């Protein structure tokens, strides 16, 4: 099955992030004559392996892997070897975290298996290696992401504006963009 194979292949690349979870500690049983206490909510940081298999009916994709920017190229090589095709590349500006997330969508012709590769990079100087030598279609997708977010895809042959005017020096989809 496509999903099991690709999950195994990409498992090694998934990063481990520290994420905050909210734990509810139930109140201790009350002593005699005392009113019952309230449960307490505690925030704690846990280590989470960022490889998920979400519910397809709810989310629309089967596998979600977060990798480091450098590992994006390795992931693309694994995916093209397993005959995935590139659907789209885009960015998301997480201004509060100070990061830009680049999201890659892949899919299979034979069986339905949608794989999402994510990577996060620093917002002030966003850089991700290009995959346009592996997937030729990434050439235009990366140019578009560069237009909208300013992400530099190192190794890209020509990162000139695709959708914006040739002399554009602004990145409109950043959250602090002012026209």
């Amino acid at each position, binding site marked *: 099955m496509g999903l099991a194979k690709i999950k195994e292949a990409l498992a090694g690349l998934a990063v481990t992030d520290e994420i905050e979870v909210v734990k509810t500690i139930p109140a201790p049983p009350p002593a005699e004559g005392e009113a019952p206490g309230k449960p307490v909510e505690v925030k704690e940081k846990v280590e989470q392996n960022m490889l998920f298999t979400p519910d397809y009916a709810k989310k629309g994709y089967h596998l979600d892997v977060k990798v480091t920017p450098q590992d994006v190229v390795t992931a693309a090589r694994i995916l093209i070897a397993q005959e995935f095709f590139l659907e789209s590349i885009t960015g998301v500006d997480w201004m509060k975290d100070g990061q830009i997330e680049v999201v890659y969508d892949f899919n299979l012709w034979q069986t339905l298996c949608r794989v999402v590769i994510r990577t996060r990079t620093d917002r002030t100087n966003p850089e991700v290696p290009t995959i346009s030598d592996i997937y030729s279609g990434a050439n235009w997708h990366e140019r578009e992401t560069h237009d909208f977010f300013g992400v530099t895809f190192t190794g890209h042959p020509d990162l000139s504006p695709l959708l914006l*005017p040739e002399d554009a020096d*602004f990145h409109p989809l950043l959250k602090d963009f*002012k*026209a």
Partner: protein
Amino acid sequence: MAPLDQVLALGRANSLWPMTFGLACCAIEMMAAGASRFDLARFGAEVFRPSPRQCDVMIVAGTISKKMEPAVKTLYDQMPEPKWVIAMGNCAISGGPFVFPGQYGIVEGADKFLPVDIYIPGCPPRPEALIEGILELEEKITGSRRWPRVQCG
């Protein structure tokens, strides 16, 4: 108008040659107006010429983006006199549905840099609206309208 001018105006009005300048969705309604059902040929305006040197009227059909603006101006300048401009659709009139605070990409209306003669509102305007616009332009050129006005109600 002097009689010779009147004859020339009549000739120009009834054989307007539009330029194929469909930018976006309104272009399809322009094509539909030139096609079999709505038939602009009845009014003499069926000959859509791609080259601006051979046209009388530029029907700006669609949104003008800031990247496209110099090209539109160049095409307008290349048309020989006498020439007219019809702004078709909300985008050509005032930017249409794409105007929002913080917009960075479009020119809010063809009349920001072109002298527009006729405005045809709609998103997209029906082919009948485009035909009405052409008839209004004919009235503007000749001074009188040959076709009856549609009475509503």
